[in-house]
Every structure is written in structure tokens, then in C-alpha cells.
């Protein structure tokens, strides 16, 4: 797909410096450790480490936690940390991908109507599914289908304009589809006022404490999306120059863009389905990395995965503990922390995106 051609050309975006990779990985590891150690229930660092050692069958290690504390640690807290990492990594990756593919610095994972479509799917499930099916399993499926369908419609509308080479057309189509789905969702919600609370908490976004089941649900999509996008990461650098430039460099713009959009969409739809709408991560993480390091997409995309994961794990720690034992909506935390942080980054750097 023209990767060789790309490498031989004059695209000189800065690559991945080992120092940044080390720093990013260290940040993620520290975040994960904090995520596992800190929670509304004080388990004690030593006890957690002992329990981990016992789980890893390190000889001589025994856990001093009670069975209930063991369950809290391994069935509630650890899977939630892992899920937060998957969701954060996926959102940041999808945001960075869309920004490159659509050459739009304001693009976020919800650009092509995923949020509106998933919201409609979730609302329809909450309002109309028979009681037995309405549980936690049907809702993600409905949100996933709704999100994917909205992006598919966006693509169809954009193509019907016969200007599918133009990224701006697709973004406009996304705005149109999102407006339509949002109106439909609001109508259904208004007709079923008793669902208001449930729809509202879903839209607010949070990392659920559903144990490993949601991790297993989301992992294949996130893994597949990450593999596809990271394999094409050098092509994103070329696409970000412009369609004509990319085509002249031997890139099949339409097919590559379709592949990237499908990967980012399926990954985002999967994480939106379990976690609702978490704003800010997809925009702020890639831009902060770009401003701090000045790297091109081929380095930005992998860094976004790692740092997005670490950022959301830390944000979720705050969501779990700030009002402990009550919870704070995660979207509040991401924006409340992300906005000032980004303002500082904007102020202290002179490198444009």
C-alpha cells in the first residue's frame, strides 16, 4: 500500500525518540500501579503486593487479604484499571487517527457520528427492550450497532456527494448524521421520561465495575484497531499532507482512509458501548503529545495509545476516590484536569500542530 514509496520520500516528520518511549511507558506503568493500589477501600500496599505475589505463584508468598478483599482487588479493581487503560488508549488513538485522516485538529473519536449513534442505540435499548433483555449485556450491543451504523451512514452520505476524496465533505456528513440521530434520541427519551436517569448516566460516561467481562468484550476490537492503525501509521503522515499530495506519492487515498476510519470506528464504538461518552481524551492527549514533542503521526499514534491509557487510568483513580465512597463522573474528571493541563501546555510551547 505504498509504504515503501512513502519512506523514500521527503516526509520528515520527527520519529520516535527512545527517551519519549521510555517516559511514556514509565508513565503508563506508574499509572497502572497507582490504579491498583488506590481505591475507596484501603487494602494496604504491602498486602496488595503479597496478594499479587501469591497470584503469580511466587514460592513462599501468601496473601493476608480476606476473601472479600481479594474479590475487591481482583474482581473489581484490577479489571476496572485494565478497562480504563483500554478505553483511554483507544480514544486517544482514534482521536489522533481522525485528526490525521481528516486534517482537522478538532477531530475527535466522535467526529463521524459515533456518539450520537451509540446514544440512540443505548436509548432505544433502555426504552423499548423487554425487561429480561434490558440488562447490562444488551445495552453495549445496541450502542455498538448504533455507533457503527451512524458512521456507515456518514460514509454513505459523504460518498453520495460524489466528492468522497474531499475529507471536509465527510466531516459535514458526520455533522448531519449526528444532528439527525441526536434529534431522534432526544425524541425517544422525551417519550419515555422514566428512562431519563439511565440514559443520562450512560451519556455521562464512566468505567464500569463489571469485572473481566467488559475487558474481554472490548479487547478484541481495541487490539484489532490498534494493529491496523499502527501498521498504517506512516501513511497517516502522508494523508495529513493532503489527498492530492498523498495520491501523487502513490497512496490509494480512498482505500487507506476507509481502512483507517473503519478501524478507528469499530474500536471507538466498542469502548463507547461499555463506557459511554468520555470527552476530551481523544483531543487532548494527541495534541499535548504533539505540542510537547513535535513528532509526526508515525510516532504520535503509538504514543497516543500509551499515554491515553495512562491518562484515563489516573483520571479514573480520581473519579473513584475524590468523593470516596461515592463516585464522580469520569467525563467531569477528564475535562476538569485535561483543560487546565492543556492550557499550560499551550502556553509553554511555541510549536504549532
Amino acid at each position, binding site marked *: 500500500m505504498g509504504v515503501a514509496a512513502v519512506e523514500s520520500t521527503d516526509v520528515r516528520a520527527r520519529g520516535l525518540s527512545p527517551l519519549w518511549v521510555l517516559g511514556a511507558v514509565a508513565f503508563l506503568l506508574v499509572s497502572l500501579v497507582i490504579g491498583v493500589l488506590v*481505591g475507596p477501600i484501603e487494602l494496604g500496599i504491602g498486602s496488595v503486593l503479597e496478594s499479587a505475589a501469591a497470584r503469580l505463584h511466587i514460592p513462599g508468598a501468601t496473601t493476608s487479604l480476606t476473601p472479600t478483599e481479594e474479590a*475487591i482487588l481482583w474482581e473489581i479493581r484490577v479489571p476496572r484499571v485494565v478497562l480504563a487503560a483500554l478505553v483511554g488508549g483507544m480514544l486517544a488513538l482514534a482521536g489522533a487517527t481522525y485528526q490525521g485522516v481528516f486534517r482537522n485538529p478538532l477531530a475527535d473519536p466522535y467526529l463521524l457520528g459515533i456518539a450520537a449513534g451509540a446514544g440512540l442505540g443505548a436509548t432505544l435499548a433502555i426504552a423499548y427492550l423487554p*425487561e429480561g433483555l*434490558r440488562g447490562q449485556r444488551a445495552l453495549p450491543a445496541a450502542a455498538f450497532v448504533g455507533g457503527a451504523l451512524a458512521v456507515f451512514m456518514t460514509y454513505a452520505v459523504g460518498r453520495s456527494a460524489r466528492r468522497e476524496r474531499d475529507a471536509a465533505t465527510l466531516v459535514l456528513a458526520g455533522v448531519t448524521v449526528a444532528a439527525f440521530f441526536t434529534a431522534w434520541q432526544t425524541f425517544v427519551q422525551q417519550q419515555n421520561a422514566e428512562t431519563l*436517569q439511565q440514559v443520562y*448516566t450512560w451519556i455521562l460516561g464512566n468505567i464500569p465495575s463489571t469485572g473481566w467481562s467488559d475487558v474481554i468484550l472490548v479487547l478484541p476490537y481495541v487490539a484489532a484497531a490498534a494493529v491496523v492503525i499502527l501498521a498504517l501509521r506512516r501513511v497517516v503522515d502522508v494523508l495529513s499532507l493532503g489527498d492530492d499530495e498523498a495520491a501523487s506519492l502513490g497512496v490509494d487515498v480512498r482505500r487507506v482512509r476507509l481502512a483507517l476510519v473503519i478501524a478507528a470506528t469499530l474500536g471507538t464504538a466498542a469502548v463507547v458501548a461499555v463506557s459511554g461518552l468520555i470527552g476530551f481524551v481523544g483531543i487532548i492527549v494527541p495534541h499535548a503529545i504533539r505540542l510537547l514533542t513535535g513528532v509526526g503521526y508515525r510516532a504520535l499514534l503509538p504514543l497516543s495509545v500509551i499515554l491515553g491509557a495512562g491518562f484515563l487510568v489516573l483520571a479514573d483513580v480520581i473519579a473513584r476516590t475524590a468523593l*470516596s*465512597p461515592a*463516585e464522580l463522573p469520569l467525563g467531569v474528571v477528564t475535562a476538569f484536569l485535561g483543560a487546565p493541563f492543556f492550557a499550560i501546555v499551550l502556553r509553554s510551547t511555541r510549536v504549532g500542530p
Partner: protein
Amino acid sequence: MPRLIALLAPALVAACVVGLSGAAAAPVQTEAAFPVTITTPAGKVTVRRKPQRIVSLSPTATESLFAIGAGPQVVAVDDRSDYPKTAPRSSLSGFTPNVEAIAAYRPDLVVIAYDPKGLSSALRRLGITVVHHDGARTLKGAYQQIRQLGLVTGNAAPAARVVTGMKSRIDRIVKAARPTASRLSVYHELTPDLYSATSNTFVGQVYRALGLRNVADAADSAGSGYPQLSAEYVVASNPDLIVLADTACCGQSPATVAQRPGWDHVSAVRTGSIVRVDDSIASRWGPRLVNFFRALSSALGRLGS
């Protein structure tokens, strides 16, 4: 002192603030006690003639109106008033009310629980009397609302009887259940993402009356009364009793609760002390409150034995 006045001048009592006269004094009033004035949290309301065309936009008020014998005076109830079945359910909404649609029923009294966007003032401008009974905060407040509905609809005596009946049944249940309940803790679940209700809410007052310790109380730093608890906390606080008020909305059941990660260690799950309450009973503060108490007491009875 208020009781003395009530005995001397029944008409005067009917016209004065209801809250002052106890339930025992109420049966003295005659049905012809109009005009009548009551004081609700939303303000004073005077009803001049016995209403014949009542519209209820509050499911709780609908239940109370039918329980106190005002049913024949009710011409329409809102779309969520699903009890009793004989209530004239309409497409009127209590959440997104349309003044014209309400006025089309030519009501002389409208009872609401929620007053969005100047609903009550718009109705008053049309010459319609409005009683705004917000969600009760205490058992006392719930009784008071039923008595006030009795007064404004000309059914004061049956309303007082309904309240006395509720009180005596609830008192009996509380007395029997308290010795067991006062040693136990409860977790009240509003949604599957663990929104709960503290002792500062109406449903929390029910648990408090029984002497149960509410695990949500520790979590409400914001004072909303409805905090969202973290799963770790609920499992660690190990409630003896779980009350599910999200069975109809969200398909929760003792089985789904037992499947949640880590919850198999919770005492209520191990002993099977999970009460499912009809969402509408647990979220209303009308005469069916007794049913809620009864459901709780039978679960507590099983725990005690």
C-alpha cells in the same frame, strides 16, 4: 390548644392551616367545609367549592385520591399514573406538561408533583386551582399530603381514616421488625450503576424508621441524598439486606446481583436477603407505602429466624 379550637369551631379549623391539627381532630369536620385553605411547601392554596373535575399529574397523588374516595371526581391522570387500574389514564405528562392539553379537560383542580417552566402559574392564570405536592421527605410529610388532598377534595374524613390505617399498620410492622433490623445494614439500589439513597431521602426514612443502618450514608458528602457508590465500597460494607428498586427499569434481580464480580461475598447475597420492590412502589409516597414496609419486614423476618 389547636385541638380545643377544633372542637369548638370545626369550620374555622378547616379553613386554617392543616398541619397544626392532628389526625385525631380531623374527623370532626363536615364535608361541607368549603372554602378550605391548605399550606403546602409551594404556598397557600384556597379551594372555594368541592372540585368535580380533578386532573392528577402525580402518580402518588393519583393513588392517594383513589384511596380516599375522591376517584369519582377525577377526570384525568397522567401517563405514568398506573395505579389503581381504574384511574382514567391519559396521555398528559407530568414531566413535560402541556397547559393547553390539561386545560382541555376543563379541570377545577390540578394536582402536580413537579412544576416545570411555570406550569402552576399558567394554570392559575386560567382560573384553575393547583396543588403542588412535591416528593415527601418524611413519613409525616406523606401523611400530611394525603390529609390535605382529603381537605381540598371534600373527603377529609376518609383521608384521615386512610392515614390512621397506614400509621397503625406501619407502627405494628416497625415494632415487630425493629429488634432484628437494628442490628443490620441495608443497601438500597436505584440503578445498576449503584446510585443509592441515603437516610435523608424519603425511602431512607423508611429504613431509618426500621432501625436499619444505611450504607449509603457514608458516601453523601455532597448532600444530594442520592450518591453513586463505588462497587468496592458496597462489597466491603457487606450489607445484610439489599433492596432492588431497579427491577422493572433495568432488569435487575437477585440472580443478576449474585453474578456481579465480587458480590458473592456480600452477606445479603449469601443469605438470599435481596428484596425486589416494584420501582413505582419504592419511588412513591402514597398509601401503598404499607406494602413496601411489609416486603421489608418479611425479608427481615427471614433474616431474624
